[in-house]
């Protein structure tokens, strides 16, 4: 039914928007491999081969080795904690009936719309009072709480949809709730759990405001915070800045390319439909 013209127009538009989406990305990449002496603060094409040394410089001179280590640690703990806590809570919300469960569940859903900006001010003063600012805890605990809103909502939707017959069968076989969850439901829930894991990973890895507020010493900086400070100090050094940007974006992009369905599904699932 469609004409050749329609077809060509469609692909033309898709190609145009693909180029628009990729221009800044390619710009960053080409600058990252460019020469450091270039005074151009804009994008430049690498002349005289690829300068891999920019990455080494960002790693050592820009201390991105340390920052990456911090980011890996914080992200790993937040993702692990969110996953375990969200699976446990969502299991109860999804398959058990008990007084107050609806109210409690809605308390978790509220967290999806509460902006961080409203939380970060009291959190800073609380954690400073507890002498936890400038520690990994100040990054881990608030981000776990915020990820739980999504995690509980997401996993509860999954457990609700999972076959009641399976749960009944497990119960008749004498499995208690704990065994049913870990031996039966969690193995089945692997796709839903991996969606939650990649989304939490991305949010935590990219988080900036919390790190900016909670961390003032260099030892606990995460990569986005490192980049912001790096830009403040070396704004003329476009090549190093771009190399550092690539180092930050790469882990998420690699996982994204491998598991793009999970990312898209999870991010669109975050728009609460209650």
């Amino acid at each position, binding site marked *: 039914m469609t004409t050749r013209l329609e077809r060509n127009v469609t692909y033309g538009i898709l190609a145009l928007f693909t180029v628009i989406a990729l221009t800044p990305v390619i710009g960053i990449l080409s600058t990252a491999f460019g020469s450091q002496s270039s005074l151009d603060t*804009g994008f430049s094409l690498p002349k005289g081969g690829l300068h891999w040394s920019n990455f080494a410089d960002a790693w050592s001179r820009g201390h991105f080795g340390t920052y990456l280590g911090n980011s890996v640690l914080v992200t790993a703990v937040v993702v692990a904690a969110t996953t375990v806590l969200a699976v446990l809570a969502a299991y109860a919300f999804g398959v058990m009936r008990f007084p107050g469960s609806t109210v409690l569940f809605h308390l978790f859903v509220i967290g999806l719309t509460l902006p961080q900006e409203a939380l970060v001010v009291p959190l800073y003063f609380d954690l400073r009072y507890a002498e936890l600012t400038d520690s990994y805890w100040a990054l881990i605990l608030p981000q776990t709480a*915020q990820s739980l809103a999504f995690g*509980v909502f997401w996993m509860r939707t999954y457990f609700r949809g999972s076959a009641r017959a399976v749960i009944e069968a497990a119960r008749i076989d004498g499995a208690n709730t704990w065994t049913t969850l870990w031996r039966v439901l969690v193995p089945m829930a692997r796709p839903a759990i991996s969606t939650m894991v990649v989304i939490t990973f991305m949010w935590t890895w990219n988080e900036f405001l919390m790190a900016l507020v909670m961390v003032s010493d260099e030892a606990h900086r995460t990569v986005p915070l490192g980049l912001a400070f790096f830009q403040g100090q070396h704004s003329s050094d476009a090549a190093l800045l771009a190399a550092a940007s690539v180092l930050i*974006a790469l882990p998420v992009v690699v996982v994204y390319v491998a598991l*793009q369905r999970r990312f898209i599904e999870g991010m669109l699932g975050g728009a609460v439909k209650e």
Partner: protein
Amino acid sequence: MKATAWTRAYRRRAPGEPRAIGYVYILPALIVYAAFLLYPFGQAVWLSFVHWDGLTVATPAGFDNYRALFSDASLRAPFLHALLLLVFYAALPVAIGLLLAALMSRVRIRGMTFFRTVLFLPQVLALIVVGVAWRSILAPDGLLNDALRAVGLGGLARPWLGDYTWALPAVGIVGTWVGTGLCMVLFLAGAQRIPRELYEAARMDGAGPLREFLTVTLPGLRPQIAVALTLTIVAGLRNFDLIYITTSGGPGNATSVPAYEVYHRAFETNQVGSAAAVGVALTVLIFVLTVTVSRLVEGRRA
């Protein structure tokens, strides 16, 4: 003995259905969530009713901090900027996405996975990285100005992010870049699910492209439009990273937004109460807008 008695009582009360144990499963998550999200939000509400510099004793402020949101021009401006930015962050991406979905809805697209991956890419990049990339595009000797000069429009070239008039739209365009792919991916997927027969029926009835869009594509995409608007509005209002890295609210306060104002007031000028009020007002704004979207677009009571 005791255990079996307990088990029996438990079974009798809930034949096959676990009950009280549900609280045990929820407890760990609830503790973390309450301590680091619910409780701080309550504190934010409390802080919004006091004057506090973060060090000395707080004094009650009544509704002063909220009244200032309307009376103080330096607080009104961020909210106006945020609403204006929503045109770039939410309205434009949705409009572009719809237009393209309309143009493409009649073609089965090959290589959709590739296009989807690339178009959605801006969504997964750290906004700090996006900000760094766009700073160099919008820089005085950046890609945009170079391109303008190359096509003989050098007169239009300017330091986009340092210009009082153009800084806000420039930051807005970055948001449009981030959001458009999300809307396209959503709408394309939605449009491909609209039954072909509806289009054929519309054409049989002599509907032109515009009619077809209004009677078939647009109603068919309602749920996707609601999701797209919700996500882009919430992301647009929460936007702190982009503003911080590209303009820091400047020049002057030309690109100041509530999210940035919270940070600025609480941690740079020691007006903690006022910062909390901005944060709470931002929460209310997000809430009102998302509820409005679900009512208007989806036509159901939220």
